[in-house]
Each structure stands twice: as C-alpha cells, then as structure tokens.
C-alpha cells in the first residue's frame, strides 16, 4: 500500500505544510486565547487540506490515465483504493492532531478548549466521510464529471449561512448556545470509532465501484 501512497504523498505534504503554516501564523496573530474566528478558519483549513489534496491527486490520475497504468501492475483495485483512503486518514489525523495540541496549549478556559477541540474533531470526521463519498463519486463518474457535481454542491452550501441567519434572525445567542452544546455533548469515544467504521465501509464501497466501473 505504501508503494502507491508515496506516489501521492508529495501533494499531501505540500498542502499539509501549507495548512500547518497558516494555522501557526493564525495562532501567532490571534494570540494565546482561542477565538471564534481562529476556530472557524482552522475548520476550513482542515477542509482545504483534504479536498485540495484529494482533488489534485485525482486530477493527476485522470490526466495521466494513472489507474490504467496501475492496473497493469501486480496490485489489486482494492489495494489502490485502500492507499488513497489511508492517505486521507493520515492527513486528517495529522491536521486535526496538530489543532487539538495547539488548542490544548492555549490560555483559554478548559470548557472553551474542550469545545474547540471537539469542533476540529467534528470537522475532521465530516471531512473523512465527505472524502470517502468523494472517492465513490470520482470512481463512479470520473474526476471531471464529479467535479461538476461537487462545484454545484459547494455553490449550494454557500446559501446555508444565509438560510441559518434568516432562520435564527434575532435569536443568534440561542443558535450559538445550541451549537456550543452540540460540540460539548459529543461522545468522542463513540463517534471516532463509529466514523472509522463508516469510513472503512465507504472504502469498501469505493473499491467495489472502481472494480465494477473497470468492467
């Protein structure tokens, strides 16, 4: 699996160094306290790392007909998919891990730190699941076609904050409290293993889809 992973690892390293640098710079700017802006940007950066690196790699595979090349080597379709999924897991783990450590080093109140850590873990889990779904989409439709779907999806997501603001107009404190309670209430001992199981299932589905598409 490492043989395939290391082909793609450069892109992940590039984006990881980029994101990690931004996080550290952000931390230096925002100071020792965890601010809402820092939290939100950190979450977006986890997204950026996963999506940018995955899509860059898949664009590269499509451009070079990389899967056609790999299919001539002694490696199974499942091993190729496993390598892709393992790399995303590693990237998310490292990025979320870095943020969790940074948050724990801050001078904020322990409850704030716990919520911030819970938030980035949540973002990590969402990224993992979305990355899994992305791979299924890419293997089913091809990178270029899937990109059109994702583009439309992101466009639709742009309306979500507007809808939320409209829905909770005049009740922003209530919304904030609800969100904070949500993050504080997540049982990570249950959610992380469950997310990994879902991710594993998505990987199996992606491998199956890739195998069927090659037929």
């Amino acid at each position: 699996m490492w043989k395939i992973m290391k082909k793609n690892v450069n892109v992940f390293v590039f984006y990881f160094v980029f994101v990690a640098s931004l996080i550290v710079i952000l931390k230096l700017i925002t100071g020792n306290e965890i601010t809402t802006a820092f939290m939100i940007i950190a979450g977006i950066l986890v997204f950026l790392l996963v999506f940018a690196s995955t899509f860059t790699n898949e664009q590269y595979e499509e451009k070079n007909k990389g899967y056609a090349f790999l299919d001539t080597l002694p490696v199974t379709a499942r091993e190729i998919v496993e390598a892709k999924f393992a790399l995303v897991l590693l990237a998310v783990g490292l990025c979320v891990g870095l943020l969790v450590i940074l948050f724990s080093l801050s001078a904020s109140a322990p409850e704030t730190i716990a919520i911030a850590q819970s938030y980035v873990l949540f973002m990590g889990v969402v990224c993992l699941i979305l990355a899994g779904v992305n791979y299924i989409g890419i293997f089913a439709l091809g990178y270029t076609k899937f990109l059109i779907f994702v583009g439309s999806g992101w466009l639709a997501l742009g309306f979500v904050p507007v809808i939320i603001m409209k829905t909770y107009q005049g009740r922003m404190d209530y919304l904030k409290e609800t969100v904070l309670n949500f993050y504080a209430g997540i049982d990570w001992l249950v959610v992380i293993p469950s997310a990994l199981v879902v991710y594993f299932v998505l990987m199996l589905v992606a491998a199956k889809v890739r195998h069927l598409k090659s037929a």
Partner: protein
Amino acid sequence: MNHIVEIDNLRKVYKGFTLDNISLNIPKDSILGLIGPNGAGKTTTIKILMDMIQPQSGSVRIFGMDHRKNIKHVRNRVGYVGEEQHFYGDKTVAWTGKFVSEFFDNWDTNMFQKLLTDFTISRTKKTKELSKGTKVKLSLAIALSHNPELMILDEPTAGLDPVIRREVLELLRTFPEDGNKSVIISSHITDDITRIADYVAFLIEGKIALSEPKDELLSKWKRIHYKDGALEDRISNTLTSQKTHMFGNSGITMDYPALKEVIAEGVAREEIKVENVDLDDVLIALVKGE
C-alpha cells in the same frame, strides 16, 4: 499442466458487440498470434486475461490458477504491453522504472538498465516527451525486466517504424527459447504473426473463427488456380474466395492434403497450379466468409 493459459467459454456483451464463447488453450513454450480485424475483440480478450475487464461468463486459468482470484500473482509473472501506453507523464523514465520495480517480486534492475540502453531510451526524459515507438519500447522493457513466464502483447507493433518493429518481433521470437515461456500477441498485421507465431487464432466479430498451429494451417490452406473445366464442380464448389479472371479461375481450399491426390493429374498437365497462401488471405477469406 501443459497449457500456460486456458480460456473457457468467455463471454462479454457490450452494446453492439459480443465476445462470444471464446475458448483457447495456449501451450507452454509457444507463441500464439491472435489475429483479427479492428473491433474483432482482440483487445477485449486480452484485457480479460489481465483482469482489466470482467467477463459476464466463462473462466480463465493462467499458470493453472483462476486468474481473477490470483491476479496479483498472475500479473507478477506476466509481462504486459497494452495497445496504448500510459505512464505518469511528468515523471522520468528512471522514476517510472523505479516505481514499477517495487511492485514486482522478480524485478531485475540490471536487465531494465540494459534494455533501456539497447532500446536507446533516455533515462532522464519525461515519459510525456517519448515518441509512441519509444513508449512501446519502455513498456516492453518494463514487461521483460521482471522475468515474466508469459508475455501478453496487444498490437505492440502498430505505429512502430519498420526497424523498431523488427527489433521487437525478434525479441519476442526468441523469448520462449529460455524454456517454459510463452507469448500471446494480438495484431491485425499478419506479417508480424507469420514471422513469430507457432499457433494462430483468428478472432472475427467476437468469435474464434479458426485456431490451429500456424504451419499446419498454412499447409492445409492453399490457393488453387485452375483453367475452366480442370476442376470438377464438386471440388471447385468447396473453394472459398473464388475469383474468375482472364487467365482462369482461383479459389482457396482449407484442406489441401485431401485434394492433393485428386488434382495431381491436373497439376501435372499444368491446368491446375497450387500456390501458398499467407495469413492475410486466410483472414480475408474468414472475414468475407465466402
């Protein structure tokens, strides 16, 4: 196990094309030429052998193993050159060699380096900068450098210049001489197959139209030229690819040994002439089905 590849009743249905009940056995130490016009199903058959396409039914055994269940093992022992060569275009030849070497158990770096030198492939060139012919040679170098027991090549000589084409064919011709090694080569250039194959299989519209040892086939298939009245109707009616021209008539027999005695007198009187056919003639006769 006398056969290195055993194909049994393969069937693959596409919209507008069906690969229908393909059965073939390829003996060890031999070269099989898979001949057919474009779109006959040669690439589909070869991709099924490499498990790049899954058939709807039928089975393939390579080295005595179910190839799909053992595809890693099979690919480890097979040198494959596809009809199109795909490499990571921004990577160099040296990188490509190093990358693929890690997947094969029996990779021979010295052989790879030697083949690059023999084929005059620059190690530092990016693969996207290589010509089509050089890409084929790089594919061939990769395929040969892990000591395969079976080479599977899909139209490897298409688009190659005559010099490189001859080099490639010569290399393949001598490949089984090491013992226990075989080659499956598909081509619509019958000259290539004539030059190197021991066995030929003609694939026409998704079906095996004919499969025989090449020399046996060419000894049975002959073109008969005859003057009007020199051949009995019952014989001339069995000939295919019949032509009538100002010098007389001609047609191809698929069973010359059975005719030899019967037409001996006509041959002696020079009213009948027997001419060897080439695989092109056989292919055309099979395609036209006359």
